[in-house]
């Protein structure tokens, strides 16, 4: 017991603000495209294993929700017109969330995780939110054991044939009003493994999704950013 206390006191408080640390130089975040240097060779389009790159006329469009941040497009671009920046705050909110819902959950949000067919990387990053460094509870947000206790579902993975029913039933069991977050490229785009007899698609093919968090997997800071964005609490923290 004494040893335990000594260890705790010696370790002290290790909790950080989610955006406190610097992003390492090698981190592959948002894709930036330089129109002036691009030769439109479209090698990036052919190289993308996730179907995240498209051209609209001469403009390159990146679907960050499908991007697996592998860096292959950047590697094949001879003109260096594509680069990964350090920006990880890529969450996108759909408009259907009313201000009233957001204000209801603003100070206290309970989450149920649903793995709908994930590789477990997103799941592990969600687990990391509970570690003393990110300490999700400091934001009044916590994970709960049952969808019946939850305000939000965080869905990871492509929805597999074998989990379609479980996902639909979990959504039904969650009381309204509720928020649904699609975590990572699989849940957000459903494209990571291509077409398969065993895959239904993205999370929004089965349940309505309110917020998409890109990443493969999204780093814990990106998840917290997405949560605070959904709750309309970012301004509050920036000020």
């Amino acid at each position, binding site marked *: 017991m004494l040893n335990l206390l000594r260890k705790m006191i010696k*370790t002290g408080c290790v909790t950080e603000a989610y955006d406190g640390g610097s992003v*390492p130089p090698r981190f592959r975040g948002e894709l930036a495209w330089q129109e002036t240097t691009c030769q439109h060779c479209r090698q990036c389009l052919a190289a993308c294993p996730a179907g995240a790159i498209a051209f609209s006329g001469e403009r390159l469009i990146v679907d960050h929700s499908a991007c697996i941040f592998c860096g292959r497009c950047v590697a094949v671009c001879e003109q260096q017109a594509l680069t990964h920046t350090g920006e990880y705050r890529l969450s996108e909110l759909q408009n259907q969330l009313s201000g009233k819902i957001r204000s209801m959950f603003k100070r206290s949000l309970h989450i149920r995780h*649903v793995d709908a067919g994930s590789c477990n990387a997103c799941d592990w990053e969600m687990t990391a939110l509970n570690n003393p*460094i990110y300490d999700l509870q400091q934001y009044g947000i916590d994970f709960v054991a049952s969808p019946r206790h939850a305000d939000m579902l965080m869905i990871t993975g492509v929805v597999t044939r*074998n989990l379609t029913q*479980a996902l639909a039933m979990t959504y039904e069991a969650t009381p309204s009003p509720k928020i649904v977050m699609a975590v990572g490229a699989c849940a957000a785009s459903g494209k*990571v493994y291509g077409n398969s007899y065993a895959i239904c698609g993205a999370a929004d093919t089965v349940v309505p999704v309110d917020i998409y968090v890109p990443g493969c997997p999204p780093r814990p800071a990106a998840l917290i950013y997405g949560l605070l964005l959904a709750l309309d609490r970012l301004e509050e923290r920036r000020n």
Partner: protein
Amino acid sequence: MISAVQVIPASTLRAAVTALSHGGRYRLTAMFANDERSINASFAVYAIFFSKEEAEFKTIKALIKQDEPLEFPSITPIMAAAAWYEREINDLFGLTPLGHPDLRPLVLHENWPQGNYPFRKDFDLGSMAGASTEYLVPPVQGEGVFEVPVGPIHAGIIEPGHFRFSQAGENIINIEAKLFFTHRGIEKAVEALSLDEALFQAERICGACSIANTLSYVQAVENLAAAEISPRAKYLRVLAAELERLYNHVGDIGNLCAGLGFAPGISHGARLKEQLMRLNERLTGNRFLRGWITLGGVTMDITRELTGDISQTLTCLRKELDGLLSLLRDNDAFLDRVNNTGILPQQAALDLGVVGVAARASGVDTDIRRDFPYAAYRSFSFQVPVYTEGDVAARLWMRADEAIQSLGIISQLLRGLPSGKLITQLRPVEPYKSDFSVTESPRGSNLHWIMTGENNTIYRYFVRSASYPNWPALTVAVPGNIIPDFPLINKSFELCYACLDR
């Protein structure tokens, strides 16, 4: 990988397997099928065996002619380890293992229309017909016996699986595990993709085994292309593999504390794991080390600053890890829960072909890094710890010992990092050649088998992760314990659902 292939008619499979495994010299590593009707007018059932004493893999390829009955003699009655492989072959290919004691569907659940076999080359998703089935759980009956269903959506942040406990009071009589909920059909989805493209799917079979899966995949392709990669790339691959083992083992020690509600252990373990994940991100830009290993080598070098960063981070980690372990080793309340809980007997581990931490904790001395070295493992000296108790505690201390060994390997590696280019270009591979590679993931041996198609594409891809043979072992270790100990026993095996389900 050099492996002898013995081609036989399927009807003689049982005799061939008996001859090979006689006296336990060769043990089953993996078993799978392939639709080779366009190549040799047959389906093939492959069974790969390994002998530690001979340091050799041997493959039996049993052919079933397409115009004969699509069946083969089951080897499960003589070799329990084959049970799930044969059920999977039955599900995906519609090849019936005759004499199999339990042919319930395994991979395809009751939602799947009967009589459709997705791994046959002429399978068409659009024209599926047939009735769905019911999932049957063998009943356990008796006075006061009841069932506890759990999952597939669990209470924690974990992967999906359904467990059906048969209970008498708190004691577990039987546990049925219904898995493959996250089955994504990755092996089928990569068919006809180029070897380059499929790399990204292989890397995403599992998060916590990203490196092990990628390494097995690229080594299998490099074997096919008869490519020799540079010593530096081999060293960096070992670095990646050991960093993956380290963050898994350290994280698992913390997670195991969650299985019995020991909060300081959970917090310290999670904090140490976070330090390792951040190191991974500094080295490769991804916390799961994704994007580092590629065909022919590695994509990124480590600079002198990063070498210093690794040494410094791991020196601190060693000290902290010792501190965490001393909290556990001296804690009677903790030891009371982990000692003698969830025992996997050595004979069960051998019979089921259990691998990795779970095998070594039950007295089975096996480690692919030592028994069949790959990448640069021959260049390092390390111990393979073995415990004989087979309980939760043995699996826990095993991870602690292995983490220390990993630190030793990394420090040898950083001192002697050879020079060399990072990537060797691979030449195209001839069609219909097959080869495989086995690596030691944090959970045990991990086998990837590839047959190439036309134009450097994949014809058939098979993945046997460490969790595959280890899941059935859980159902042996759990009965006889009380239900509150199930999470603890489960965490001590720390099996991936994603790796198993694919």
